[in-house]
């Protein structure tokens, strides 16, 4: 998505990315980025919370209008929850047992096989 934003911008279309993976988007380098410190899957706000979604969009629109230069990141002030321990879970090896890892390896092998066999894959 970061590569797409760069290509559109290169061709005169202003862009803003709404996302939850701060390091990945900033590593690529994009013109404008509204970052929500939420679990992946909530780039546009909290579930079943139209106010949070409206605020998230409004912040993105303000970034689109007023970023002074490329690589502008604004972080939404919204918190997923007060307790930040959810951030310790995602793909965190420190929380997985050797059995967990073996199981996930098997799952990933099967995912790769599925993708390899798919029509339309490039």
């Amino acid at each position, binding site marked *: 998505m970061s590569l797409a934003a760069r290509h559109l911008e290169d061709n005169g279309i202003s862009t803003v990315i709404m996302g939850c993976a701060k390091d990945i988007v900033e590593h690529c*380098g994009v013109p404008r980025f509204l970052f929500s410190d939420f679990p992946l899957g909530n780039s*546009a706000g909290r579930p079943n919370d139209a106010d949070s979604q409206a605020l998230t969009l409004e912040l993105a629109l303000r970034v689109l209008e007023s970023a002074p230069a490329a690589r502008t990141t604004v972080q939404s002030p919204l918190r997923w929850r007060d307790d930040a321990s959810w951030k310790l879970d995602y793909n965190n090896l420190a929380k997985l047992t050797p059995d967990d890892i073996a199981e996930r390896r098997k799952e990933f092998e099967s995912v790769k096989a599925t993708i390899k066999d798919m029509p*339309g894959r490039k």
Partner: protein
Amino acid sequence: MATTAPETKTVFAAEHDVPIPYMQRTRDYYQALGFSPYRWAHFVDVPFAPLRTPLARARVALITTAAPFQPEVGDQGPGAPYNAAAKFYKVYSVPAESTPDLRISHVGYDRLHTSAEDISTYLPLARLKDAVAAGRIGALGPRLHGAPTNRSQRVTIEIDNPELLRRCREDGVDAAVLVPS
């Protein structure tokens, strides 16, 4: 009479209360699983095209990585396990007027802490329509566009991105909101 300033207590955030270091987590995770690490593209230069039309008169595109629902390829519902069969490999477009059925079971969203039960958490189409109705945005593009999450950066750069640009130009948009899921 001596006065004392009201006591202020500085409360620091917890050590782990920072944006998740996804790149490090992902590298370590796939290495432990025995797979070669993904290398993320990065650049020194970043393009910048200031918005030339006031937003209230601008036409805005919505671009998503969500996938059209395909009933024949298994569970894509809220909380579904990662479903590689639901992936798509070509740019697609659907009318923005409708409410398309787009899902995110084909990407690595945080299945432990969220469930993708509300499409508006990953596709701000309803909120964008609200913004148009409120006069905040001039108009939405006639279509929203789907960008594949191809692992090959070459395919993204040489095939998908030019196609997205072509469609955005056809739609006459001034700006684009891109929402990775």
